[in-house]
């Protein structure tokens, strides 16, 4: 599920972007050690394969009219190994952002983490732990299934966490989480079934392709994976517990006056001019909402505008912007009509 710019706050977006960039850089270094330049073409074409594979849809049982398709992260991690798989899926996510505009530019960090890094590594790790080598057995298939469901669920779990840390949405965290996990349980099941079916097909047709036989052996040390998971869990836990204490929910707005709608009636009236001014200042001058210097607000008390004129200024702003765009458009039309005559 592609995260959008608008559902993230700036600190969360830049933070996740930094994490994603750092880990991608690390993975690239790692992959260059493992893979020779002759596998570059293979990785590129398999990325394109993921795109194409997402178009092959199958009709779902019990839900007529709906159809599902595969995501492919776990399949690729199984075939290419986790590092190369993570790079390929990340490049797919980047192309989806840049060419197809799925998910925003600043949300790219979140999307890379949720849909590429986490599913590839977690999926590969679970697959390896559950199957212990021999491909083609029932155990291997069940293990693949399990890996797919959990890998997708882990990615889906991070979406509400990031949204909640940003505080843009007012949907309660638990509702969002349950919805995402529920929907992605189905997605994961479909993914698992298709992945197993494709691997079974490959086993019959091209047994040399299946389980990471392609580019040199990759080893994920169990200790490293468990440590990473623990750090991740701690970080998320810490973030969420911080959040529980100062989540900007509806309450925040009910005790203070809304600065952008000046004639909004306060539910719990707090008429102290200092409080009003602080909130006023906060939304007026803060580059990052919720993070502003409160001390310098005191001097600004006198600058409040009466409600009616605020309405008119907003009207002027919107109409003015619309007019500007109309003028630009008309000018472009006129200039464009003139050009062919000259030529």
């Amino acid at each position, binding site marked *: 599920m*592609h995260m959008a*710019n*608008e*559902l993230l706050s*700036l600190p969360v977006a830049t933070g996740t972007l930094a994490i994603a960039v750092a880990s991608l850089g690390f993975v690239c270094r790692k*992959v260059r050690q493992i893979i020779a*330049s*002759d596998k*570059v*073409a*293979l*990785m*590129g074409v*398999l*990325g394109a*394969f993921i*795109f*194409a594979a997402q*178009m092959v849809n*199958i*009709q779902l*049982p019990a839900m007529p009219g709906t159809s599902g398709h595969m995501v492919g992260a776990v399949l690729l991690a199984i075939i290419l190994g986790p590092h190369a798989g993570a790079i390929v899926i990340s*490049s*797919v996510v980047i*192309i989806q*952002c840049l*060419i*197809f*505009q799925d998910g925003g530019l*600043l949300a790219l960090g979140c999307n890379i983490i949720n849909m590429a890094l986490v599913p590839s590594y977690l999926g590969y790790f679970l697959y390896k732990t559950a199957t212990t080598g021999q491909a083609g057995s029932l155990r291997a298939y069940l293990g693949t299934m399990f890996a797919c469901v959990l890998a997708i669920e882990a990615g889906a779990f991070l979406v509400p966490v990031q949204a909640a840390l940003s505080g843009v949405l007012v*949907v309660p965290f638990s509702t969002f989480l349950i919805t995402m996990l529920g929907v992605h349980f189905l997605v994961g099941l479909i993914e698992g079934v*298709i992945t197993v*079916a*494709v691997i*079974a*097909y490959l086993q019959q*047709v091209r047994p040399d*392709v299946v389980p990471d036989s392609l580019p040199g052996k990759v080893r994920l040390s169990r200790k490293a994976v468990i440590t990473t998971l623990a750090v991740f869990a701690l970080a998320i836990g810490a973030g969420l517990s911080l959040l529980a204490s100062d989540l900007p929910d*509806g309450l925040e*707005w009910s005790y203070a006056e809304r*600065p*952008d*709608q000046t004639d*909004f*009636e306060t539910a719990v009236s707090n008429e102290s001019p200092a409080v009003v001014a602080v909130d006023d200042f906060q*939304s007026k001058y803060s580059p*990052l*909402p919720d993070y502003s210097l409160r001390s310098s607000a005191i001097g600004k008390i006198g600058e409040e*505008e009466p*409600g009616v004129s*605020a*309405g*008119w200024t*907003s009207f002027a*702003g*919107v*109409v003015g912007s619309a007019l*500007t*765009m109309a003028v*630009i458009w008309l000018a472009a039309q006129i200039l464009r009509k003139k050009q062919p005559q000259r030529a």
Partner: protein
Amino acid sequence: MHHAHIDKFAYQDSLIHRLDCRIKFMVLLVFTAVVISLPRTSPGILTCYAIGPFTILVWAKIPLRFVFKHILLVSPFVVVLALSCPLYDKTPVTVAFGPIIWQSSLGWMRCFTILAKFIVTMSALIALVSTTRFNDLLTGLQRLGVPKLLTVQLGFLYRYIFVLIDRTHRMLRARAGRKLRNLGFKAELKIAAAMLGSLLVRSIDNAEHTNIAMQARGFDGNWRTISKLQIHRADYVFATAAAFFLLVLHFFVKPVVL
């Protein structure tokens, strides 16, 4: 096949198209960051910010219908989440917009802000992508420090997406032509797995052929392009104009007003 023409406007020519892609990319990054850090409950101010991408799109002769169609295509997830805001935040507010004054809730304000931000940042992203050739963008990204392995990977991916998508379209058409009804989940799954499996095997074989051809021509992991990036005077003018635009909006258009 609508995919095949998704960045067709990148091959036009205009002043915007000729700008250096690194400058355009950085401007887009800053613009997006500024827009998403705007207050969450004042949709009005975003019309002022919309002037920026709008000017660039019009100047670069990108049809606005194409832009809106594209934004609509990628919007469902955001629209669902934005529409859920009014359900949870029912704090009443009085909205004064010029002569009209009406009662609404804060949730609706949030909803419209999210949607407006979505439209503004998406049109800015489309403005970058449809005025920059992807290969130039990759060269620029590599100069900005993106690992070479990743840019080469992206270049390959871009080269082969449309090939494989066309191939898949043919397979899907063949399936639709032979299978005239729903065959039940098991049969459907078997067909899909065979399609995906053969697609995968063909991709791997393709990659092998490409690799042999590239090795024969001396590919050593470096991507050599003839696109030479140079920052001209126009680029400085563009960057200054963009900075001026954002600064003016930041200091003269206050969220409290809107």
